[in-house]
């Protein structure tokens, strides 16, 4: 069974442990600015919302890539950026309707969540289980994926 990141904003305290874990795993230092998961703060509402790639079925980023640099890892289900192949054209960054593929000016490549190859550091670091890595069929994921359908430019007729 494939697993996926499930996010429960109700449990988030905004501590940014996930952002630190992500940046450390991927960039080698503690740098929330370079994290692939972001916690958004809604101050007046008193709410924190962690947010990252849902590895959506539509895979807009993968489809938009002109050089085949984004591929699905069939073990984890993650769309992964191959840094060697990525030319840095950024088409995926505008094609991803969730805003979760971003351009890294320092490397000239794009970055996105790759589920850390199957052991996502953010979920491990989260102290409140706001971010968990669970069976893909678990509740919550469907809701997140439902966002994707709102962006589909196609409409099935059957």
């Amino acid at each position, binding site marked *: 069974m494939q697993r996926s990141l499930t996010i429960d*904003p109700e449990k988030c305290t905004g501590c940014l442990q996930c952002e630190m874990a992500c940046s450390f795993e991927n960039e080698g230092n503690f740098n929330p600015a370079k994290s692939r998961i*972001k916690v*958004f703060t*809604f101050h007046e509402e008193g709410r924190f*919302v962690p*947010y990252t790639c849902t590895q959506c079925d539509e895979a*807009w980023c993968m*489809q*938009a890539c*002109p*050089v*085949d640099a984004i591929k699905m890892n069939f073990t984890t289900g993650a769309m992964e950026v191959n840094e060697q*192949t990525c*030319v*840095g*054209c*950024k*088409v*995926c*960054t*505008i*094609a*991803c*309707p*969730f*805003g*979760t*593929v*971003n*351009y*890294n*000016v320092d490397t*000239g490549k794009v970055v996105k969540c790759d589920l850390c190859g199957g052991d996502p550091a953010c979920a491990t670091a989260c102290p409140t289980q706001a971010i968990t890595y669970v069976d893909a069929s678990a509740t919550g994921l469907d809701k997140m994926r439902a*966002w994707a359908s*709102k*962006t589909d*430019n*196609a*409409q*099935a*007729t*059957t």
Partner: protein
Amino acid sequence: MKHLIIGAGPAGVVAAETLRKLDENASITILGDEPEPPYSRMAIPYLLIDNIDEQGTYLRKDQDYFKRQNIDVVVGRAESLDPVNKTVKVAEGDSLPYDKLLVATGSRPIKPPVPGIDHEKVTSCWTLEDARKITSGIQQGTPVVLIGAGFIGCIILEALVSAGADLTVVEMGNRMVPRMLDEKCGSMLEAWCQNKGVNVMTSTTVTAIEPKGDGVLVKTSDGNEVEAELVISAAGVKPNADFLEGSDVKLVDGGIEIDEFMQSSMDGVYAAGDVAYGRDFSTGEFGIQAIQPTAVDHARLAANNMHKHGSIRHRGSVLMNVLDTMGLISASYGQWEGVEGGDSAELLDENNFRYIQLQFDQDRLVGANTLGMTQHVGVLRGLIQGKFHLGHWKQKLMNNPLLLMEAYLAATQAS
């Protein structure tokens, strides 16, 4: 079932792949008119700066990929269509039969009507062959004139400058990239380029190109004359549909008119990508978008309908573009020029070359321009295409357009 796809660009390849997924047994042939394996023009700028080799531009990296997918890739140029016998005549070759035909021939550069444009020192920047010609023609200090500061012109600026070109850009619009960026954005981009030593002349046209010594003399509408050893013409593109002229396939503005199932006026003939006169998501109107994400959208939908006509309806593609001009990144979405009666919001930081402009129709986002932004830009697509009612978040965005992600999360996660 025989599927024939004319064009080996992203639309052609994605359509072929989609067809293969839908039908293991179908015969699928891609006909392309360049000798290289299918490659991406989007990657050419990165080839020019040596970030990648030619192989790095290939749409699919694995040498045997198409063979393994059982997709025939044939080199040759389509010359004409025989709808009665359902064949396509290939220049200097046989005719290829089809049951369903996809025209994904893309576009080609426009040659501006300037005396001397056919001089051997003038080249376009469109194919790998052009790229080879440009790289070999520029050394340190080579005077180069670029005609057109559109998308293509801008995206190769860095390559030209880093190769050593002493560069002059002549753009007839009043700003750079006028078809993608608003006045502020285009003007800031111009200032950026000037700062980097590029001579940018806007509201100017090239009136003549005359031989001079080993090079040419480029004359402009403001009475200037610029010597150049190389002239790159990047004055726009037009659809590659000439071979259909005189056929029953209806063309509009040179593109192939398609319906919501991506089919042309002729049964069994579909079109996708730059050549297709397709539906725009924002306006509902038809036109030519000529951008990578749209080409891929079209291809996917066309393939589905070629496999089973009527299976998926095209609701239109969102116009979107991203451009890296010597390190300054700009993007545009949808109705970035605004809509009548709609509100707009902007945030401008001229010193740091940062800008964002949002266009609203009532409380929905319909378009945007950004400059100098690299984080979460895609969410603009999500907001536009999701047609989310922003409610009180519209006012928050009016106050600070950078709260895009927050607005998106508020719109989508409201429980």
